């Protein structure tokens, strides 16, 4: 026998209202935890995908689209830029490193990105499980998820198709060979097929040649080589003030700051997150009210019980603790159930969003915010139990025990 057992015995005594209290709280906490997991993992993934890149230079259009297409691979590119312009920017003294990328084809919906060896080896997140980096034209390495979903492995051949959705025109005459599979990163690179930029250019040069033959006579001018975008690392932070302005002044080019664009995107998402958060806080507050009403109502039925406990030697403090503990058991168990539910929901949801939106949530990561949510829930239970506990503290034993009032 102890206070916890005594408290719990009253909670089990009224299973229906107890279950309702637990559910309300667990639901509210679950939604709050889900939001924490969602916003953290989204932010985390975006931040990691941006690591090392200070500026993206691409064709004019939406700067957000430029960042989404070149770094997060969640959108289609804004267009191409002439290589000569890219070289001009790359030669600027404020630039430390540049990574040219060429996009345009995909395989089973996974984008094929042409770049150079510097890009592939510059980022510590890119690790080859086995195999070697592409050195020859038509060699490619594939991301972890690509390998999982398509079954491709080292030594296999595949052909890309034009565009980013499945069903585009296939470049059957240009088969790639897989030279390696990247380690799992949880980032955009999991869904990427990397090849040398020369490969992309090679395929399209021939492809375009074919087209030009069809439209013979219309335009026989040799096309200037193009790339999709240039990813830039600054040499000094001061470059942020100068380079974008320089780029934007060039015809057909725009510069987008990944950090700025992604925080703008998260800002849009934040509106929705805030709305759902308000909903979850209302649920938690309602659960608190539920606990308060349950305890207050039970107090009327328990006047005698409390008086007898006093008669048996329990001090006022013990009775006070008993009621407080009941509130804490409600909120503690509810909050714990909510946190577990939130993680289970994140894992299940992650399964679907991973397939549909290429943003995989994991339910197996815990965040410090959850401690605050848990403590908040405990406080709600404490506050809800406070008034009933004070009333129990003040109960007149003699009055509650005398048979006249019984």
């Amino acid at each position, binding site marked *: *026998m102890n206070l916890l057992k005594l408290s719990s015995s009253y909670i089990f*005594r009224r299973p229906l209202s107890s279950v309702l209290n637990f559910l309300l709280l667990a639901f509210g906490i679950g939604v709050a935890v889900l939001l924490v997991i969602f916003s953290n993992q989204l932010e985390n993934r975006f931040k990691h995908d941006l690591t090392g890149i200070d500026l993206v230079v691409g064709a004019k259009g939406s700067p957000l689209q430029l960042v989404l297409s070149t770094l997060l691979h969640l959108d289609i590119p804004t267009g191409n830029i002439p290589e000569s312009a890219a070289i001009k920017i790359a030669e600027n003294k404020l630039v430390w490193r540049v990574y040219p990328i060429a996009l345009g084809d995909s395989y089973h919906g996974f984008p094929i990105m042409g770049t150079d060896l510097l890009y592939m080896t510059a980022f510590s997140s890119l690790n080859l499980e086995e195999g070697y980096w592409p050195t020859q034209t038509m060699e490619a390495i594939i991301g972890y998820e690509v390998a999982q979903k398509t079954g491709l492995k080292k030594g296999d051949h595949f052909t890309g198709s034009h565009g980013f959705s499945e069903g585009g025109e296939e470049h059957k005459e240009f088969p790639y060979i897989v030279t390696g599979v990247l380690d799992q990163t949880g980032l955009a690179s999991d869904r990427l097929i990397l090849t040398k930029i020369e490969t992309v250019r090679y395929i399209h040069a021939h492809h375009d040649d074919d087209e030009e033959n069809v439209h013979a006579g219309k335009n026989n001018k040799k096309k200037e080589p193009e790339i999709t975008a240039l990813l830039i690392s600054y040499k000094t932070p001061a470059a942020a003030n100068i380079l974008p302005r320089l780029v934007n002044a060039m015809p057909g080019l725009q510069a987008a700051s990944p950090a700025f664009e992604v925080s703008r995107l998260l800002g849009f998402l934040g509106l929705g997150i805030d709305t759902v958060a308000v909903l979850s806080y209302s649920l938690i507050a309602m659960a608190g009210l539920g606990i308060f009403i349950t305890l207050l109502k039970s107090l009327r039925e328990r006047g*005698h019980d409390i008086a*007898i*406990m006093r008669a048996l*030697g329990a001090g006022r403090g013990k009775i006070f603790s008993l009621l407080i503990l009941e509130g804490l058991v409600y909120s503690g168990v509810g909050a714990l159930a909510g946190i577990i539910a939130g993680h289970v929901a994140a894992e299940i949801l992650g399964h679907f969003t991973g397939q549909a939106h290429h943003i995989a949530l994991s339910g197996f990561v815990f965040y410090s915010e959850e401690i605050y949510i848990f403590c908040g829930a405990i406080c709600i239970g404490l506050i809800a139990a406070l008034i009933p506990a004070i009333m129990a503290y003040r109960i007149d*034993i003699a009055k509650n025990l005398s048979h006249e009032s019984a």
Partner: protein
Amino acid sequence: MLELEGISHGFGGKALFSIDRLEILGGKHLLILGKSGSGKTTLLNIIGGLLRPAKGAVWLEKTNIYSLTNNARDKLRGLNIGFIFQKLHLIPTLSVMENLLLANYLAGKKQNRPHGWKILEALGLKHKKNAYPENLSFGEAQRTAIARALMNEPKIIIADEPTSALDDESCASVIQLLISEASQRNCSLIVATHDHRIKDFFPDRITL
């Protein structure tokens, strides 16, 4: 052992009763007779440390119990006084044995399960130790309440109208049980009742 000194109590300025001096020696029993509303329960509450009298003092051995702090008085009551109320007031969410252990726990004593078994056995309730109050007959519930009052081996057992709801036969057996259990443990039994059937069991009586 228990001494009442110049006790008077009433409600709204009207004195309900007053007792100049009353002493109960260790192991002696007392019957408080009186009609409904004569203040029997009030007097029991005063004796039991549950209700501070308007005037007077209650001495338990050498302690004036109303001069103690609230907490000390609660503790003293838990350790020295066992209560059996007319409404039995078993805790409905706890089993028979848990109700007994609760008495140990709330008095701050070690929870003595074997002692509980012994008492339940003596009262013929051992088979009901895991039953809940709602599944007990009135007689079983009353014996459970008696068992609970005995759990902390009190010096005094206070019983309020223990027999008023019983037929003649049960009335006699319950009061005999109470007296024999109290006597065996060298414990004073103080019974308040309007039930004249039991007055012959008590050589010491007062009437309010």
